[in-house]
């Protein structure tokens, strides 16, 4: 084993890069397998084993390289395998497919049935950027995820890694770096959207000499995994950004706060820090500049509220992660009351790109007020779920219908919720809204950290608001009265409305409590917690009225307001629902139309699911028609023809 020589100057870094290039220059075929969280859950580990064994068996170790990489975002199609240099993408790969793939690599052929099928043209697609899900994306942050083994720093260095650090440290002054970031107009990707350069400058200008920098990877939004994907797949990009930031700000120590639930991210960033230390990108006298900087990993204990910057710092200090008043910014008085610059994972990962490619390049992507790209996690009632990276300013319509492929089962679009649990619902009339920090804010939602939940006609807007309120109720730290008690009252009130127990003064109460929470809560969890309710009330007020006054849920999603009914004209008396009903609530026999005894029905919906003739209907807010005459025969369908 070659002992590692620390890189002492920018020139030595370039030499190292050239050495890696010459060693790998022959471009032998590489099998890149995603072993990030999503694909591993779908069986990527056994696919990887199959490749290792298969290549060994066919004695191709010298000819084919295997690379264990991070996530490309189309997780529902996993496990994903890409064959370089031709960039052939295989999806839903099983261990049994591996032998065939290996043999085709040798023969320069393709396994057609493992390629992605374009759902519209029905054609097989070979390369990533030909797939509709990827076609309209722009992926400067995520694109290297498939090319890098996150546990191998040489892979990162090979793809120009740490060159931005070398440039910043040897050719720029801290002031120049901050100016460059300010010119790029980069805004905080954790959701607040505060101008990053100004934040850095505030910490740099604070009088205290001891300063800290922090990576916030306490990603807790339900269904969101943007930060995880970067930390799993390209941890050095985050680390390089952090080191540049520390140099510009004048910090000597940094923390990476990773939530407990991200074991792979923790493992990979820890490895990255160790390797960066060995190679001299961390520690004393970095790249011969005299700059010293060290980083520690802090594991969170699973509280959503700890993603709030002051709560996160309190947690690092070893106390309960409660937020504290931030009227003096954490940039001035943060961790241990020292000036602290905290940025989200994605913010830090953007830094090396801006330093290398320049502020102008960055500013040219996105909109006037929000430059660069945004990473969204597309989930909910949408065909293509996964992680997408797009330029700021893309319309919601393009995001949902082009990249996302439209609504699942071709249902009707109802709303989209952006920004995580405290984001707002955006109705159909704003589908052409250009997604950026300011536009989302204008319609009552927010960018947040990038969650995007698509809602279809079968989803109730009151129930959706209740879902998010209940999530936040669980996650509120409980320190301030408006948030703790406000969420408790809202949860109870919304629950009552969904259960048909809503009263006429409930909407007024919900509005008053929301107003108080919005204005008087201690931290952003409380001040934004009412967004789902307020936007639901604003854009879907008729649904609230129907729930309260008519005891009706048009989406037929609220169980207490929905009844199941078998249409005697449609029922074919096939006995299937009758047999499947767990409470034996369905009456009838062979050749006699069936009937649901409402007193026994628990509304589980199994009859609705199993009926092959669409005879079971959901009713809400209307009277159940009277029972058909005993012994009524089914009206046979198609009998007339």
């Amino acid at each position, binding site marked *: 084993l070659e002992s590692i020589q620390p890189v002492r100057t920018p020139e030595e870094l370039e030499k190292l890069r050239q050495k890696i290039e010459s060693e790998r220059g022959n471009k032998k075929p590489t099998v890149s397998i995603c072993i990030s969280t999503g694909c591993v859950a779908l069986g990527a580990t056994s696919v990887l084993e199959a490749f290792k064994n298969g290549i060994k068996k066919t004695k191709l170790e010298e000819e084919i390289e295997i690379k264990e990489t991070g996530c490309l975002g189309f997780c529902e199609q996993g496990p994903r395998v890409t064959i370089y240099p031709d960039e052939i993408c295989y999806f839903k790969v099983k261990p049994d497919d591996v032998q065939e793939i290996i043999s085709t690599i040798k023969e320069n052929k393709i396994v057609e049935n493992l390629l992605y099928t374009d759902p519209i043209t029905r054609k097989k697609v070979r390369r990533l950027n030909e797939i509709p899900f990827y076609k309209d994306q722009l992926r400067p942050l995520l694109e290297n995820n498939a090319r890098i083994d996150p546990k191998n720093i040489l892979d990162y260095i090979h793809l120009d890694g740490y060159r931005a650090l070398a440039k910043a440290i040897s050719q720029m002054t801290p002031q120049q770096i901050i100016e460059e970031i300010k010119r790029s107009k980069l805004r905080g990707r954790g959701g607040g959207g505060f101008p990053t350069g100004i934040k850095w400058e505030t910490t740099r200008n604070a009088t205290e000499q001891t300063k800290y920098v922090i990576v916030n990877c306490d990603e807790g939004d339900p269904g969101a995994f943007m930060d995880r994907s970067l930390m799993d797949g390209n941890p050095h990009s985050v680390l390089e950004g952090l080191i540049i930031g520390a140099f510009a700000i004048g910090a000597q120590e940094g923390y990476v706060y990773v939530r407990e639930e991200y074991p792979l991210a923790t493992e990979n960033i820890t490895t990255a820090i160790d390797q960066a230390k060995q190679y001299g990108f961390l520690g004393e006298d970095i790249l011969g500049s005299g700059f010293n900087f060290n980083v520690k990993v802090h594991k969170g204990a699973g509280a959503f509220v700890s993603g709030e910057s002051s709560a996160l710092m309190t947690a690092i200090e070893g106390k309960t992660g409660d937020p504290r008043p931030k009227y003096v910014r954490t940039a001035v008085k943060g961790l241990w009351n020292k000036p602290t610059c905290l940025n989200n994972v994605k913010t830090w990962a953007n830094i090396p790109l801006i330093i290398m490619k320049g502020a102008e390049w960055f500013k040219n992507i996105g909109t006037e007020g929000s430059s660069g790209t945004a990473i969204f996690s597309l989930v909910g009632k949408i065909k293509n779920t996964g992680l997408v990276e797009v330029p700021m300013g893309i319309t919601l319509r393009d995001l949902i219908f082009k990249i996302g492929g439209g609504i699942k089962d071709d249902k009707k679009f109802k709303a989209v919720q952006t920004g995580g649990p405290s984001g707002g619902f955006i109705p159909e009339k704003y589908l052409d809204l250009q997604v950026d920090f300011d536009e989302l804010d204008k319609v009552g939602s927010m960018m947040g950290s990038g969650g995007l939940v698509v809602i279809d006609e079968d989803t109730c807007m009151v129930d959706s608001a209740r879902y998010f309120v209940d999530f936040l109720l669980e996650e509120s*730290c*409980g320190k*301030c009265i408006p948030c703790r*008690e406000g969420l*408790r009252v809202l949860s109870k009130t919304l629950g009552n409305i969904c259960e048909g127990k809503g009263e006429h003064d409930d909407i007024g*109460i919900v509005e008053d409590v929301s*107003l*108080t929470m919005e*204005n*008087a809560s201690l931290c952003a969890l409380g001040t934004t917690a009412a967004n789902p309710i307020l936007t639901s009330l604003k854009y879907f007020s008729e649904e609230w009225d129907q729930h309260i006054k008519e005891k009706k849920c048009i989406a037929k999603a609220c169980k207490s307001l929905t009844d199941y009914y078998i249409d005697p004209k449609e029922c074919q008396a096939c006995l299937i629902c009758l047999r499947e009903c767990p409470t034996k609530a369905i009456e009838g026999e062979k050749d006699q139309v069936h009937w649901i005894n409402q007193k026994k029905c628990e509304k589980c919906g199994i009859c609705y699911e199993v009926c092959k003739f669409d005879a079971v209907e959901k009713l809400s807010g209307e009277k159940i028609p009277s029972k058909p005459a005993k012994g009524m025969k089914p009206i046979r369908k198609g009998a007339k023809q």
Partner: protein
Amino acid sequence: MKTLTLKIDGKEVEAEEDMTILEAAEKLGIQIPTLCHHENLEPYGACRICSVEIEAKGKTMIVASCCYPVKRDLNVITRSSKIDKIRKTILELAAVTAGEDAMGEMRKLASEYNADLSLLRSKTSIVPTKCILCGLCVRRCSEATWDSVIGFIGRGTKRQITLYPEKASICAICDYCHDVCPTGKITSTGPDPPFPQIDDILAGRE
């Protein structure tokens, strides 16, 4: 210490730069209600009843005056229909745990702000604990005994104040926690002891 001038309810006041709005208002004799504040304890900002409107650089926002530091040319409004409405709702929310029969400062403020302490309480079905988790007792205890005997456990609505059993022997029964309690929850004697463990331990039952 440098001083600066700001305006509170239309009146100019000179304040030291490390003062909070609440302290500056006191200089003018303007009373801002508080539930979790104590002049000798660090600001905590949990009850939010001291919320006031501030106007600076053309923007208005609502802040907790017990924590917000004074700034030059700040324009503060301590009473407005919006502020009154927020304070009324905060009292009604506090009553969810404090109970509609809360005593002390809560009762006084409820009548001043016309708060119906049973309005929001009636929406929930929880048994009142009399405690609004203002943390005054916890903070007072930690200053009195250098090492707090009581503290918070739990998160969100499960948050509560408890005695740390291993520290019970330090409790000097100084009654300071009793003195600062704004709801009348903490009584040194009486039928409803605030930290049952304390009494149990002192009575030798544990």
